[in-house]
């Protein structure tokens, strides 16, 4: 079937953060665009059922029923999988996958994808990140540099709304920022201490995708200021933080150029041997299981890192018997993630006369300082860190009976300051870190299950020890006490930053995508979500995926105009 209702200028697979950006750019430029989403539709505000529920209104006060927890051990390990947002997460039982090595795959199958529940941290990459593989001899050299992406970071930031300070830190370039919330007094104290004691270490405000100042563009989007509720994972009725549902999809729909097709599970991309191009996608309806095909001149693959790998691996043809563009058996290999295993916490004995008041959606951030300017340790690369200081009123629940009641009502005091940092370590993409299709098991839509195999290595273990040593020293210098470190030993995946498998590179022999995210061997297919990543660096990657998508989409638009694809 190739009638008009199934033919578009562009097809975007995935209605999450990066897919939303592709659709928005195409629609803004007048391209008739189909966006396919395997999950249900989620309309901004209308489909946020818990967004205005007060804490005492939840039947289980936030807990997950044990029946759900026991049946779904992977998703139950995710910090945000709680009673208020559990409806946005994929249950293990609904979408199984293979784990030759433990991997906690955290997914959100709906319009908006994981952009509804994301942590909203938005730090740019710098050339210290893009030049990493070439300098340190792993993966392949990135085919782009910061200068290629910088204008697109700005383009995205201005539209999304990023709160931040211009810090002038070369490892974390500044962007188009809205005003920042305060760092609290203990975070400022740590900032000062680090500045006094270290030359190249910085404590800055963690930039995040929240609107703190009203601009015309946000009014046009129908979004309001962030109210600091800190329950963003439910979806925000103010549109205070950015997600695909509040910002990109409605914007694209307003152009009249967007067709949104939810419940559309992409089976594969259709390749035409004659033209040497992809002609469309094959879709299985999630509910009816009916198969349909859609056609377009250009296809953007934004299904989420591992599902984008899966779709390409399942796109088989005579020309590509091992998956679309996979002439060299690279597809699915060199996947990586962020090492989130290590945490450090302590107490701060000072600033007893102060406490934070109100709410904010972020904390402080310490950009990578290890191995930035030269190799200085016995492990490659480094780690960025969160830093937060907290203090709140505490109740005394000693005793029983009237004594307990009296304590709870009459004995409320501010507890001491607690401080903590979490490591966000760069892992090295390796050939044996990979995903592949199961030869026997299929899901209920007839698509092979994905096997996922990646693990920590010696480099990661050394990095954890270094984090413990360096941060213990930094905490001691700041006067923090009762310092304790913890290695969660968690499996890869809980960082929710899986990347790679369809890496970029200049050489078609050693990479899947060119510098514009086009599959070398099938140039009208673009991959611009996390699957394209050649290396993973330390920053939360979503901002980079969005900037890359906007850049690639505009390149595709130019090429379409010139009829080059």
């Amino acid at each position, binding site marked *: 079937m190739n009638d008009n209702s199934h033919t578009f200028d562009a097809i975007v697979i995935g209605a999450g953060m990066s897919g939303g950006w592709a659709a928005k750019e195409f629609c803004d430029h007048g391209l008739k665009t189909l966006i396919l989403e395997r999950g249900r539709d989620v309309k901004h505000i209308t489909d946020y059922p818990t967004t205005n529920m007060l*804490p*005492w209104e939840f039947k289980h006060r936030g807990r997950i029923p044990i029946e759900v927890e026991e049946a779904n051990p992977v998703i139950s390990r995710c910090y945000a999988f709680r009673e208020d947002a559990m409806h946005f997460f994929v249950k293990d039982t609904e979408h199984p996958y293979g784990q030759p090595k433990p991997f906690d795959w955290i997914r959100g199958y709906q319009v908006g994808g994981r952009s509804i529940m994301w942590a909203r941290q938005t730090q740019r990459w710098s050339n210290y990140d893009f030049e990493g593989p070439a300098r340190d001899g792993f993966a392949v050299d990135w085919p782009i540099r910061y200068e290629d992406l910088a204008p697109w970071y700005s383009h995205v930031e201005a539209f999304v709304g990023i709160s931040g300070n211009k810090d002038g830190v070369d490892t974390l370039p500044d962007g188009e920022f809205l005003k920042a919330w*305060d760092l609290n*007094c203990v975070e400022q104290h740590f900032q000062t201490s680090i500045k006094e004691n270290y030359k190249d270490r910085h404590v800055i405000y963690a930039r995040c995708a929240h609107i703190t100042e009203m601009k015309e563009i946000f009014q046009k989007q129908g979004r309001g200021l962030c109210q*600091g509720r800190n329950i963003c994972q439910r979806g925000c009725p103010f549109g205070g933080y950015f997600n695909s549902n509040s910002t990109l999809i409605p914007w694209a729909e307003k152009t009249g150029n967007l067709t949104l097709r939810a419940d559309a599970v992409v089976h594969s991309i259709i390749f035409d041997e004659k033209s040497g191009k992809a002609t469309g996608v094959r879709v299985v309806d999630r509910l009816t299981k009916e198969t349909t095909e859609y056609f377009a001149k250009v296809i953007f693959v934004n299904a989420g890192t591992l599902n984008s790998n899966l779709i390409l691996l399942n796109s088989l043809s005579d020309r590509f018997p091992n998956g679309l563009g996979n002439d060299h058996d690279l597809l699915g290999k060199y996947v990586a993630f962020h090492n989130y295993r290590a945490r450090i916490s302590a107490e701060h004995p000072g600033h007893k006369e102060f406490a*934070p008041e109100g709410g904010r959606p972020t904390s402080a951030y310490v950009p990578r300082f290890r191995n930035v300017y030269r190799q200085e340790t016995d492990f490659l690369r480094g780690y960025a860190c969160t830093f937060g200081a907290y203090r709140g009123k505490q109740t005394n629940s000693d005793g*029983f009976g009237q004594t307990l009641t009296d304590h709870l009502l009459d004995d409320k005091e501010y507890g001491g300051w607690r401080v903590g940092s979490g490591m966000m370590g760069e892992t090295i993409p390796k050939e044996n870190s990979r995903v592949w299709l199961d030869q026997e098991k299929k899901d209920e839509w007839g698509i092979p299950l994905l096997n996922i195999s990646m693990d920590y290595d010696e480099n990661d273990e050394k990095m954890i020890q270094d984090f413990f040593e360096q941060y213990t020293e930094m905490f001691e210098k700041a006067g923090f006490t009762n310092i304790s470190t913890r290695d969660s030993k968690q499996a890869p995946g809980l960082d929710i930053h899986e990347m790679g498998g369809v890496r970029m590179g200049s050489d078609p022999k050693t990479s899947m995508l060119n510098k514009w995210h086009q599959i070398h061997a099938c140039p009208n297919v673009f991959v611009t979500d996390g699957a394209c990543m050649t290396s993973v660096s330390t920053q939360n990657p979503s901002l980079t995926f969005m900037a890359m998508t906007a850049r690639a989409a505009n390149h595709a638009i130019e090429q379409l105009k010139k009829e080059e694809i």
Partner: protein
Amino acid sequence: MNRRQAIQQLSIMGVGLALYPACNLEDVPTYARVLLERKQYGIFKQFTEAILPVDHTLYPTPEPRSTFILTILNDCTSTQEIGQYLEGLKEFETYLSENKLKSLDKLSNEKLDEIFSHIEDSKESNENLSRFARITKSLAVQHFTGSEKFMTEEMEYEFVPGRYIGCAKI
């Protein structure tokens, strides 16, 4: 209903009243995983109140405290933990019976303190009883401190703060 049936029912009620405290006349709520006999439910319910006496009209909650605790036990607790909890409740029932204590809500504060002291002293000697009390207390405290009035008035909770002051003087 004829006169004879009415008298018969009154007699049954009379026997019931003689055997159980007034609150035990309530229906025992049905939970698939937490099965309580009528007498056990009465003791459980009284204990949930005695452990943290509060005027519920001043601190209203969406559900009664006993309902909340049973809901969490039933929906969010492992089978093993539920078993241990119910064993602890039985131990408590035995303790009350051995000490000829029928209704917790009619006891003086001094007597209740005696009971609580016994529970606290039994941490090592009677693990089930201690666990029963600890879980009940923890959920009772969560229910009370999570009530709207406690959160907003006692803990200054704000659903829509709309501001952040990093260093507010306290």
